[in-house]
């Protein structure tokens, strides 16, 4: 009897502890979000989404160019990073070779740990110097490089999770291996791969350092992929360190928009992967 009581007590204590731990995981996000709402919501209005920044000293204006710029940069980065990352991941998971995949995997993990500003310098050397100007492309390349290891590794993991029995079922039907990978293995891993891709996009959406000397920022509308381009994180950075109250408010608003964007991407990842046949097994 006593032991049962004792066990029940320990059990509820543990339940509370784990619930508290789970709560503290989401607490920072809730706090950040609340704080941003409190500080930034006031500066959010139609102008913020439709107007260019006003010249120094004038009140008002918006960050429309930065919002669009960030979307363009994310698009470019995805265009470059996702196909290479996904194909690379499939290679790592499927290759029968031992050495090269091991090296690639190791280097991908190292790349994942490289500070993003260093990746910015890399894109600067690779793209900005030859082109002789800052550009959207350079920013896209920098972000794509940051995305690559995340996408490669999650894709590999997801492809590996596909049971060998499915692969064998496909092969035993007299289907060539490449078709089995394309039509059986990849669709089965699809949910996980999409999630990985979205995580990578969300991860780079807020990157500032690698854009400093690649995309560079721009106070005007998008002028072509070979031109410097505005980006939300850059704009937030510039406004936050400026001495004007109105800009500070706009910086908060920009941060709020950025975080909502990231949330939206994460939510999308959930939605695309839900309710599909066999999405979660």
């Amino acid at each position: 009897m006593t032991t049962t009581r004792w066990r029940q007590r320990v059990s509820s204590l543990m339940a509370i502890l784990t619930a508290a731990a789970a709560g503290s995981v989401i607490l920072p996000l809730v706090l950040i979000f609340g704080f941003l709402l409190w500080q930034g919501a006031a500066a959010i209005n139609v102008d913020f989404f439709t107007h260019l920044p006003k010249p120094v000293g004038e009140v008002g204006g918006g960050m429309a160019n930065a919002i669009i710029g960030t979307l363009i940069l994310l698009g470019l980065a995805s265009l470059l990073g996702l196909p290479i990352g996904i194909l690379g991941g499939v290679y790592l998971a499927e290759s029968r070779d031992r050495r090269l995949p091991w090296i690639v995997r190791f280097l991908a993990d190292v790349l994942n740990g490289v500070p993003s500003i260093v990746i910015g310098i890399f894109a600067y050397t690779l793209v900005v110097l030859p082109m002789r100007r800052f550009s959207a492309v350079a920013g896209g390349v920098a972000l794509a490089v940051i995305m690559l290891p995340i996408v490669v590794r999650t894709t590999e993991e997801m492809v590996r999770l596909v049971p060998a029995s499915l692969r064998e079922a496909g092969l035993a039907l007299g289907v060539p291996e490449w078709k089995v990978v394309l039509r059986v293995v990849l669709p089965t891993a699809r949910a996980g791969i999409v999630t990985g891709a979205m995580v990578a996009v969300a991860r780079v959406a807020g990157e500032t350092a690698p854009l400093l000397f690649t995309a560079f920022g721009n106070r005007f509308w998008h002028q072509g992929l070979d031109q410097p381009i505005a980006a939300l994180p850059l704009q937030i950075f510039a406004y936050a360190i400026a001495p004007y109250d109105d800009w500070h408010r706009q910086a908060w608003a920009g941060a709020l928009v950025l975080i909502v964007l990231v949330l939206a991407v994460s939510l999308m990842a959930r939605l695309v992967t839900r309710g599909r046949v066999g999405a979660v097994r």
Partner: protein
Amino acid sequence: MADGITVTKLNAWFGPSHVLHDIDLAVAPRAVTAIIGPSGCGKSTFIRCLNRMHEVVPGARVVGTVLQEGQDIYSPGVDPVEVRRRIGMVFQKPNPFPTMTVFDNVAAGLRLGGVRDRGVLNERVERALHAAALWEEVKDRLGKPGAGLSGGQQQRLCIARALAVEPEVLLMDEPCSALDPIATARIEELILELKRDLTIVIVTHNMQQAARVADATGFFLLGELVEFGPTSQLFTKPVDKRTEDYITGRFG
């Protein structure tokens, strides 16, 4: 037409371990051949050698000849993909494609083999589901996920999937081991039904099952074929002492 499978001096390895030793065996056409033997004796390995699935495992190797339709499936010019199309396989655990519906599962082999014609697909899928004795149960849920069926239904779905590409031989690796007696009985009925058109090789742990469905039975032990003959003879008058010990349950 079908003239069975003739296996001569078949040896198989997983990396350094030699798991099949000089197997000689002739599978009769349009008949059921059962493979029995204790766990780990090489039954799965053996039937996977019959449609070149063994080599799918990294480091696995095969030496020997397997004549099917007068052709050695291991001779250099032979495409394993082509072999597997003619010699289908059903696995121990039902493995329907989780991203596909019931219909798509059965149509998978045809579609991936390039058949696009909707009419042809419909007809072949229906025929395969009938042949697998599953049509009545799934005809109203062809668009539902294949993984949503019961275990026994999933196994029959996998049989239908294998039948849809119209193989000449069907290899079954313990197809009933995950099923209850009723589902098992259905599959056994099905096997007897199918042998009118197909050559069937079935691995089973269940000696009653072998006795019920098989025309010929082979007993494997430690990677060797100890005895092979008509099922009734193997079970009633085994020639080898080891076979007798095994079927009388004296070792396992």
